[in-house]
Structure formats: C-alpha cells, structure tokens
C-alpha cells in the first residue's frame, strides 16, 4: 500500500512538473514570437524609411534639378568649343579635339 502511494505521488509530481514545463515552454515560445514580431515591425519600418530616402535621393539627383542648380552656381556644361576628347590609340590619333 505504501509503495502504491509512493507511485501515485511520484506520478502526480511528474504530471505537475510536465505541466509546469509545458507552461514554461509555451511562455518561452510566446516571448520569442513577440520578439520576432517586434523585429519584423522594425524591419518593415526601416524598409519603408529606406524607400523614402531612396525616393528623396532620386529627387535630389534629378538631372534637370542638378542642371538648374549647377547653372545658378555658374557650373553649367562647357561650350563644345572648349572641349577636347582623348581616345586610346597611336600617338597621332590619341587626341581628337572637337575643335
């Protein structure tokens, strides 16, 4: 009888331990899931900010905007008469001036 009681007690303790383990495991999974969720939200927010910044960069680098800004600063393209082009090749053909 005593042995049976001991067995019953051991089973009950094991069941309680297992239940507590399950609760702990569940909590751990939930914590990880929430952390994942939070990281995912941060990632999405950063991707959106990156998208915004890339658009802003494209607006700032717009060729017509740069040209207008350059001209305002006196940095417009050179007149073709002041441009010389160099091409690789024999010495006498190396420099082909536009004028």
């Amino acid at each position: 009888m005593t042995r049976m009681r001991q067995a019953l007690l051991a089973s009950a303790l094991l069941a309680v331990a297992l239940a507590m383990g399950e609760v702990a495991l569940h909590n751990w999974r939930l914590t990880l899931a929430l952390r994942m969720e939070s990281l995912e939200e941060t990632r999405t927010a950063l991707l959106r900010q990156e998208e915004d910044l890339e658009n802003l960069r494209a607006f700032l680098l717009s060729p017509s905007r740069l040209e207008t800004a350059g001209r305002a600063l006196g940095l417009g393209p050179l007149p073709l008469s002041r441009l010389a082009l160099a091409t690789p090749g024999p010495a006498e053909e190396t420099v082909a001036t536009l004028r």
Partner: protein
Amino acid sequence: MRRSDEPRPGRRSTRIRLAAALACSVFLVMTCRLARLQLVDHDFYSAVANAQHSHRVVLEPCRGRIYDRNGYILAGNRPVVTVEVYWPNVPEGQEAEIDSLCMRLSGMGAATSVPDRTGMNQILARDIPYEEALPLISGPVPRGVNWTVGSRRVYPLGDAAASLVGRAGPGGTEGLEKEYDGLLTGTAGVRFVERSAFAGMSVTDADAENIPPVDGADLMLTIDSRFQCIVQEELQKAVEESGGSWGAAVVMDPWNGDILAMGSYPVRAPGGPLDMNYCVEGMTEPGSTFKIVTLTACLQEGLVTPSDSFDCSRGLIEVADRSISDCHEHGVLTVDQIIAQSSNVGTIQMAMLLPDSLFYSYCLRFGFGTPTGIDLPGEQCGILRDPAHWSGLSKASMAIGQEVAVTPLQLTRAFCVVANGGILVQPRLVAASRDSGRWRSWACFPLRRVMTPQTAATIRGILRLAVESGTGRSAAVDGVTIGGKTGTAERLGFGRGAYLSAFAGMVPAESPRLVAVVVIDRPGFVYRFGSTLAAPTFSSMVSRMISTDPDMALGASRSDSDRGGVALR
C-alpha cells in the same frame, strides 16, 4: 458496542454503490460529451475558436521599380498611411479625441475629412507620408481608430518621362506601367495572426500556412534620364515658341535599338490626364526625310550613283497632270546634291527609275507600314498603301514623303538602318529586369538587312553633305560631324498653311553613336520648314547631350558594332 445512529454495514455499502454509480454516470456523460466535442464536432469548434483569436492578413507585394540605364529611379514607391475610424468602437463622449486627431492630421498636410458619426466606417485622412505619420502611429491612438500603411507611385523626374513611363495609380495605368503591369505588380501573400483577447498583442501563427508576398520585378530601361530631360526641355521650348500643336523626339542607339530618350509634348491633355505618346501614336507625313528610301532603292539597285546628274532647272515636274515644284530652281544637280538641297524634282526623277513594286518593297524593308513592335501600348503602324491602290501621282508623292504616314519612331528606326550599316533593328525600352534579386538582360536583336554597308556609307556621306552645305545647315553642332535630312510636309486635312517640320540626323556622321529625330506638327507659318525649327532644335539637343556625355562625339566603337545587327549578312 455499536452506536445506534451509525448505519449498518449493509446500508453503507448500498450508499457507496449508489455514489459510485452516480459518479460513473456523470463521468460517462462527460466522456461522451468530450468525445462529441473532440471527435464529432471538432472541426466546427476548432473553426469557431480560430475565428475568435486568429485572423488572416493579406500582405500586399511591393510594386517593382523602374530605373534608367544608369540606375536612376524613374518610378518608385512611397509608403503612405491611411487613418480611419470605426465609429461603433468609439465610446460615447470621446469624439473630442477624434477631432483632436483630425487637427493633428491636417497639420501634416494630409487631406482630412470632417468627423461624422452618422456612418460606421470613415476615412479620416489618406496618403500621409510615412515619415510624417510615424510619430502618430507609433504612439497610442484613440479607441476605434485604425491605420494602414499602403504605397503610392512616385516619379522623381516629374513629367519629363511621363509619356514614356506612364502612370500607375488609383485612376488606372498607362505607358510602360501598363505594358508591364503583370511583371511589376507581384503576388500578394497571406499571414495568419493570433491575437490576445485583452493585451492587444498579436503574433504570427507559425503553424499556419503563411505565404510571403512576391514583390514585382524591377525594370531597367534603356533610357538615359539625362538625355530624357534635355530632349523634353528642348522639345517643349520648340513647341511653345513656334506655336506648334505637338512635338515628338526620339533618340536611339542605332546598333542595338536602345531608345535613349523619347520626348513627347504636350505631356498632359487639358484636364490633367496624360496625353498620347506622339512618338508612337502620332502619325504624320514624313516629308523630305522620306527621300532616303528613294535614294536607298536607287543606289542599292544600281540605278544611280552619287555623281549621276539630273536636270532640275525648271524647278517643277509634271506627274499625272499635276505639277510638283521645288522651293527654287536648282539647275542640274547630282544625286548627292539632290538630297543635300532636298530637291523634289530631282528625287521624283530618281523615283521614276524604280518599278512601283520595287519602291514599295523598299518602303516595307525600312519598316514603314508595320508597327515597330516597341513595348509601349497604342503604337500606330502608319499608312503605306500597296501599289494596287496607288494613283498616277502616288509614287512621285511618296518619293518626297507625301501620301504616306509614319510615326517618329518608325522614322528614327529607318535612319538607324543607314547609321548602322544597313540593318533594321528592333527598338526596345527595357534592357534588363530584376527578379528575386538577380538582374537578367533582355535580348536585343536585328531584324533584317535592308542595304549593303557600302550603300549605307554612301548615304551617310550624302547626309553629312546635307548638313554641311545643304538644307540642314542649322542642325550643325560645333565640332561634331552631323549627318541628317530636313523634312517639311504639308499636313493634309488641316487646311492651307499647315505643315510639319522635321529633322532626322545621326551623330557623328561617319560612325554614328546615336540617331535622333525631331518632329513638330503645325508650327507657326514662319517656322514651317524643317531647317527653321526642327533642325535647330536637333542641334540644341545634341550639343547639350554631348556636353553631358562627350563620349557620344567619339563615334561607335567596335563594341558598339558588335552589339548590333552586323552579325546579319
């Protein structure tokens, strides 16, 4: 001795049995009920439970971006926030919080609506830039208020490439956005989320069949945004100064058919929507630019040489009881002078040497009368009637670019044939696409040989003469050799005094790196000639393009010719 109030052993045993039977019955009932819940009605109750704590979220894919050939964004996405309120969830007496929220939203420059409790669901503000809305949505929002993040298309170049790239938005899609909508859109995903009842927390259900969204493919165009801006600006200036009804300009790499720039003006129709892209939808008589077809046919068939001469001294020629004249009397002209001086009389005399079917076949070989197959919606094929429907005047008219209608793109492609040594190429706008992070190049391919490289070289020499000493002098660019042809066409159906001013040219003339065509429809009378409007516009465009990228003045390298159709024989 037994006490008298203690039950006798027999009665106690009966009670225990009854209690045990009762407990067994209850246990049996509970087991049956449990079996019913777990086995028979499992699916039903499982679905009810899932519906209470889990919900399905559709994940919108990101629309693919459109880049130019240098990686500059032509069409991107901007995250925007929409704020809405579900009035049944707003507690009575807390409307002031919603009013205060609306004031904050209007302070962000968003289009807000006045809170109105009569409905169920109301959008308070839409399209708030994400960056601006971030402080609002990251903090607590009043009960009943919900926000969603979507995206809107943005075009950093503004309207400079609008007629080409098109638009994608709630109002529909146009241009390239429409042509490649399926590729750009991507596929939506789905995520199952479990939500707590009170804490307002939600986590992704890892065991559910979550499907990630597949973003749309990115496209890299052949367009150079620097050239695109130049072309669009110069075209706008020319159309506005001359009072033209519309203008179109195409810049193309003759070796592989890459469209480097494609301008069309006006960009927008009155009222706001995009106007048509006149480069592919604007059909006009090409005028004298079409004379290269007559010239090619005669040279290629060995009917004339550049030094052969024709008498143009009368200044007019009679064909089928009609007389066609030159602007002024030229005297006796050689073939190269006929083209350089753009003599109608001389060109018609050359055309008369050609059988109708042969002349028609050269028109077809240059790609006139059929769509170029460019990846833009709404392309027109032009008008090219077959000889069975010609009048006695038709061949003479067509030889000088009347009785035929072409699009600016078809004309550009025809000049590319001369520029690249005789190969008709397929124009293209998309150079590569990026799917799953990897860029893949799209093929460019030549279509057919139209003339021999020797004939093409001869014609390039004649076109250079036209710019150096002929009608195209105003197209000259300081320090760079230009070959080209002016065109002035009568616009039939628009009354007297309606003309088309056109110029088609190549840079540099000996080994062209690019071919450009400028067409301006119905300009003011003083601007009607190709030499007075289209040619100077071409010159301005090209000189600015060369200032921006001086390599263009160097001519085609061996790698350019290797890229193109020279593999054809």
